[in-house]
C-alpha cells in the first residue's frame, strides 16, 4: 500500500494527515480511496448508495450519499476543512461545478478534477480554469498506449523530469540479445545512461548488485534516458522493428484520443468504428487517419484490409467482452502485438490469459495520476509498478540528509536504489563515484514498505 505524506510538508511542517474530500465513488474514486485511505482522512460523496457501501465496509472512510454538485452537500461533508478536494465522477460538468463550490467553501484546499474533455484540459493549462490539477482519462490512456507502442516490449512506462527520465518495465523474452542476458550485470553491455532498478523473479523484487544476472522470464525495471529505454527495447526484442502501422478498433473518445496521439507521432493509423455517424465524425476530426466504417469482427473486412499484417492493434471498444473477442480474433488473423483498453478490473486477467500483450485501464491510469498529485509535492510523481508493492519516488534531497556528500558506492543499501538525479534541470544517471548534493532531485526505486525510511534519510 502506498504511503502518502501530508500537505503540510510543503510548508515545512512535520508530516501530518490530510483531510481529503472525494466526489465520485466509481472506479476512479475507489482506486484513489484504496491508495490514500491508510494515511489520510477521507470523505467520499456519491449519489449512489451501492457505490458507497463497499467502500465504507472495506476502508475506514466517511461516506455521504448526496449530490457532489450541491453546495449544501459539500458544506455538510466538511469541505471547509479539507486540504485536498478531488472531483472524479464520470461527468465533467458535475466535476467542474463541484470544484467551483469547493473553491468557495475552502479557498485554500488544493483541487483536482477528472475530465474527459481535452478542451477543459487546455483551458486548465492556460490557467483559465480555477483548479489546481486536471486529469483526462482519455488522454492518460492514450499516453499509456502510445508509450507501450513506442517501446514494444515494455509493460509499463513512466516518465519523470519532463520526459528526460523514463522508468520502463520489461518482460525479458527468450531470444533477447545475449549481450545482456545471463551475464553478471557489471560485465553486460548495458545501454548508456541507464540502470537496472530491479529484477522481479517469482514475484519478489531484488535490487540487483553487480553480480546479478538477467534471465529470460524475468521482469526487469529499468531507469534511463528515452534513448536508453529504446535501446533496451530493441535489446530485449531485437526482431521487432519500429512500429509505423497501427490499427485502432473503436472510435469512441478513448479510441479517438489514442489515434490522434499515435498519428501525431508519425504512425500510420487505421481506425475501425462500427457506427456510421461516429465513423464520419472521427474521419472529419482526424484527417491524417484512415477511418473504416466496419465492425472489428467482420471476417471479410479483416481479410480484405489485411488487418492481420498490421504491426500493432489497439482495442478500445467500449464493451469489454466485444473488445476481448475482437482482440482475440485479430490475434487469430496474425496481429502479433495487441494492446487492449480494459474497463473492468478483472478483465485485465482475462486479456492476459488470452495472450493480449498489454492492457491499459483508463480509470486506473486516471486514479494513478490523481494520487500522484495527492502525494507529497516533493515527490512529484509516483509510478505504481507491479500493483502496489514497489514504488518509484521522485523527491528533492534535503540539505540535512545524511546521504548528502556521500559517493553512491558508499551508500548503504536499504531496500532502495537511486536511479537518476536531476540537477539544474538536467538528468544524470549516476555512476558509483558520483556524489549526492543537497537540492538534487532524486528518483528512487523502493519497496513500498520502505518509503518512510527513504523519505526520512533523504
Amino acid at each position: 500500500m502506498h504511503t502518502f505524506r501530508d500537505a503540510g510538508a510543503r510548508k515545512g511542517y512535520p508530516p501530518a494527515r490530510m483531510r481529503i474530500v472525494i466526489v465520485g465513488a466509481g472506479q476512479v474514486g475507489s482506486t484513489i480511496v484504496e491508495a490514500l485511505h491508510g494515511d489520510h482522512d477521507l470523505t467520499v460523496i456519491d449519489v449512489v448508495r451501492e457505490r458507497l457501501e463497499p467502500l465504507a465496509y472495506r476502508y475506514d472512510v466517511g461516506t455521504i450519499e448526496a449530490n457532489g454538485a450541491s453546495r449544501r452537500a459539500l458544506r455538510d461533508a466538511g469541505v471547509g476543512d479539507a486540504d485536498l478536494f478531488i472531483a472524479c465522477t464520470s461527468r465533467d460538468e458535475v466535476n467542474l461545478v463541484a470544484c467551483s463550490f469547493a473553491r468557495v467553501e475552502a479557498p485554500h484546499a488544493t483541487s483536482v478534477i477528472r475530465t474527459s474533455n481535452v478542451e477543459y484540459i487546455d483551458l486548465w493549462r492556460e490557467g483559465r480554469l480555477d483548479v489546481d490539477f486536471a486529469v483526462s482519462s482519455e488522454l492518460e490512456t492514450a499516453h499509456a498506449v502510445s508509450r507501450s507502442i513506442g517501446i514494444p516490449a515494455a509493460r509499463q512506462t513512466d516518465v519523470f523530469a519532463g520526459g528526460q527520465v523514463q522508468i520502463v518495465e520489461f518482460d525479458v523474452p527468450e531470444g533477447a540479445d545475449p549481450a545482456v542476458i545471463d551475464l553478471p550485470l557489471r560485465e553486460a553491455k548495458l545501454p548508456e545512461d541507464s540502470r537496472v532498478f530491479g529484477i522481479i523473479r517469482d514475484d519478489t523484487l531484488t535490487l540487483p548488485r553487480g553480480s546479478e544476472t538477467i534471465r529470460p522470464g524475468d521482469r526487469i525495471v529499468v531507469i534511463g534516458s528515452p534513448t536508453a529505454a529504446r535501446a533496451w527495447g530493441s535489446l530485449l526484442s531485437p526482431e521487432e522493428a519500429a512500429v509505423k502501422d497501427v490499427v485502432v478498433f473503436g472510435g469512441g473518445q478513448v479510441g479517438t484520443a489514442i489515434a490522434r496521439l499515435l498519428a501525431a507521432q508519425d504512425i500510420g493509423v487505421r481506425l475501425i468504428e462500427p457506427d456510421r455517424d461516429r465513423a464520419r465524425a472521427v474521419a472529419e476530426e482526424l484527417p491524417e487517419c484512415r477511418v473504416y466504417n466496419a465492425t472489428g469482427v467482420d471476417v471479410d473486412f479483416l481479410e480484405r484490409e489485411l488487418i492481420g499484417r498490421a504491426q500493432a492493434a489497439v482495442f478500445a471498444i467500449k464493451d469489454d467482452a466485444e473488445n476481448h473477442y475482437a482482440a482475440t480474433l485479430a490475434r487469430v488473423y496474425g496481429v502479433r502485438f495487441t494492446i487492449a483498453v480494459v474497463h473492468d478490473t478483472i478483465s485485465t486477467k482475462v486479456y492476459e490469459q488470452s495472450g493480449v500483450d498489454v492492457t491499459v485501464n483508463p480509470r486506473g491510469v486516471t486514479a494513478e495520476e490523481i494520487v500522484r498529485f495527492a502525494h507529497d509535492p516533493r515527490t512529484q510523481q509516483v509510478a505504481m509498478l507491479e500493483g502496489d508493492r514497489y514504488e518509484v519516488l521522485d523527491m528533492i534531497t534535503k540539505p540535512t540528509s545524511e546521504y548528502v556528500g556521500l559517493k553512491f558506492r558508499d551508500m548503504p543499501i536499504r531496500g532502495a536504489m537511486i536511479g537518476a538525479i536531476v540537477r539544474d534541470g538536467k538528468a544524470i544517471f549516476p555512476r558509483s563515484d558520483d556524489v549526492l548534493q543537497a537540492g538534487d532531485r532524486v528518483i528512487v526505486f523502493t519497496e513500498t514498505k520502505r518509503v518512510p525510511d527513504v523519505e526520512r534519510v533523504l
Partner: protein
Amino acid sequence: MSPTSGADRPERIRERTYVGIDVRGALGLTGTMLAYLSLSALIPLACAIGYREPIWPFVGAGAIAGAVGLGLQRLGRRSPGPIGFREGYLVVSLTWLLAAAYAALPYLLSDERQVSRPVDAFFEGMSGFSTTGATVIVDVEALDRSLLLWRQLSQWLGGMGIIVLALAVLPRLRIGGRQMFESELPGPEVHQLAERIRDTARRLWLLYIALTLVLFGLLLVIGLTGLDDRMDPFQAIAHALTTMPLGGFSSDARSLELFAPVTQWVVALFMAIAGVNFALLYLALVRRRPRAVARDEEARLYGAMLLIGSAVVCAELIHAGVFAGEEALRQAVFQVTSLMTGTGFATTNYVSWPTVSIMAMIGLMFVGASAGSPTGSVKIVRHLLVGRILRRELRQTIHPELVQPIRLNGRTVDERTLRAVLAFVLLYIGIFIIGAILLAIDSRFSSVELGMTEAIAASAGTLGNVGPALGFAGPMGSYAPFSDFSKVVMASLMWIGRLEVLPVLVLLTRNYWRV
C-alpha cells in the same frame, strides 16, 4: 348521441389551394428590383446630354422600366405574407429576364439599325447583364457614345449581381435575402464577410467599385502618358466597366487587338484578379491578409490552371510559328485568361490558331474562374470537388468501408453540397449538349453555315457567359448571322448559365408550383 364529437364542421370549407407559391409577392419584389434598376438609365442619359446625343432612348427606357416595376410592386402589395425560400427562385429568375428586357429598351428606342429588331436587342441585353459579351453588333464604332456606354454599363451592373446590389442599397427587402443572394452569387458556397447579408453585399460592391476605379485610373494614365494613343478617357471607362465583371464587350470592333501591349497586359492582369473569389480579394486587399489568397485551394488551382493553359498555348504558338517572343507569351496569356475567366476579350483573331490551341480554348470555356467572382461556367471549386469525389470513389473501390470526408481548405464539405456539385456539373453538360444540338439543327433550316466546332463553341460560349465562339461568331465577328430561334436559344443559355442552372430549372418542375 352521435358517434362523433367535438366542434362542428366549419360553415365554409376553404377552397383547395393549387398554386404553392406566392406569385403575387414574387412579382411585387421583382417589380421593386426593376423599379430601382431603372434609375441606372440616368448614367447614359447624362452621357447623352454631355455628348449632345438623343436622350429619349434612356428617358423612355427608364420610364417604361420604372412604370412596369412600380406596377408589379403594386400587384405585390396584396400578397399574404413575406417572400419565402421558394419564391426566391422565381424572383431571381424573373428579375434577370426583366433586366435583360430593360437593357434591350434603349437599343430599340434608338434609331440604331444594327439592334433595331427585338430579338437582337434582347440578345444584346441578356449578353450584357449576364456578362457574356456575345454581340450581334458588327460595327461597334457606329453606335452613339451614350448607347455604347449603356452597353458597357449593363455588363458592369450584371457582374456583381443585380440582387446583391439590391440587397446592398435597397432600404429593406421583405426577405432575409440569403437564399437569393446564394442563387445569384456564383459557386456552391458563399463566404460571409459580415454577420448580415446586407453588409456582405455592400462590401462586395464597394470592393468591385474600387477595383473598377483603379483599373480606370491605370488605363487613363496609360492613355494620357502616350503609352497607348488609342486609349482615350472614354475607352478607359468603357473597358474598365467590362473587365471587372469579366464581361467582354469592347467599345472597339477589333476588341483589344489594336491597343498597345501594355494595355493588353494590364487588362489581362485585371481579368486574372477579377477571377479570384471576391471574398478572398476583400481579405487580401482590405483586411491586408494576402496569405488568405495564397493559402486558398481554389485560388491556387485557379493560378495553376492559368499558368498551365498559357504555357501549353504559348508553346504551340511558338512551335507552329504563329507568334514569337513576347508576343507569343502575351497572346497566349491574354487569350487563355480571357476565355477561362469567361471575359471574352481578344487581342487576335484566334479562330485560325492550330488544333491544340483551339481545343484548349474550347476546354477552358468549361473551366471558369473562382466561385464568388463574376465569372460564368462551371468554376474552379467545382472541378476541385468533382476531382476529389472521383478520387474517393476510386479509393472506395479498393476499400469499400473507408470513410473519407471531402475537405476544402481543411474544412469538410457537406455530402449534400457534394451532391449538388455533381448535379450541377451533369446538368451543365446536359444543357450545353442540348444547346449545341439545337443550334446545329436550326442551322439546317436557316442559311447559316455552322460546323460542329462552331456549334459546340457557340453553346459553350453562351452558357459559360464567355462570349465569342469560333467561326463567324469568333472574337472579331458577331452573332448577327444566327437565326432568331438560335438567338433565343443562346439568350436562354446565357440566362441559365448566369443563374447557375438550378434556379431556372426548378421553375420548370411541376413540384415547384404545386402545393
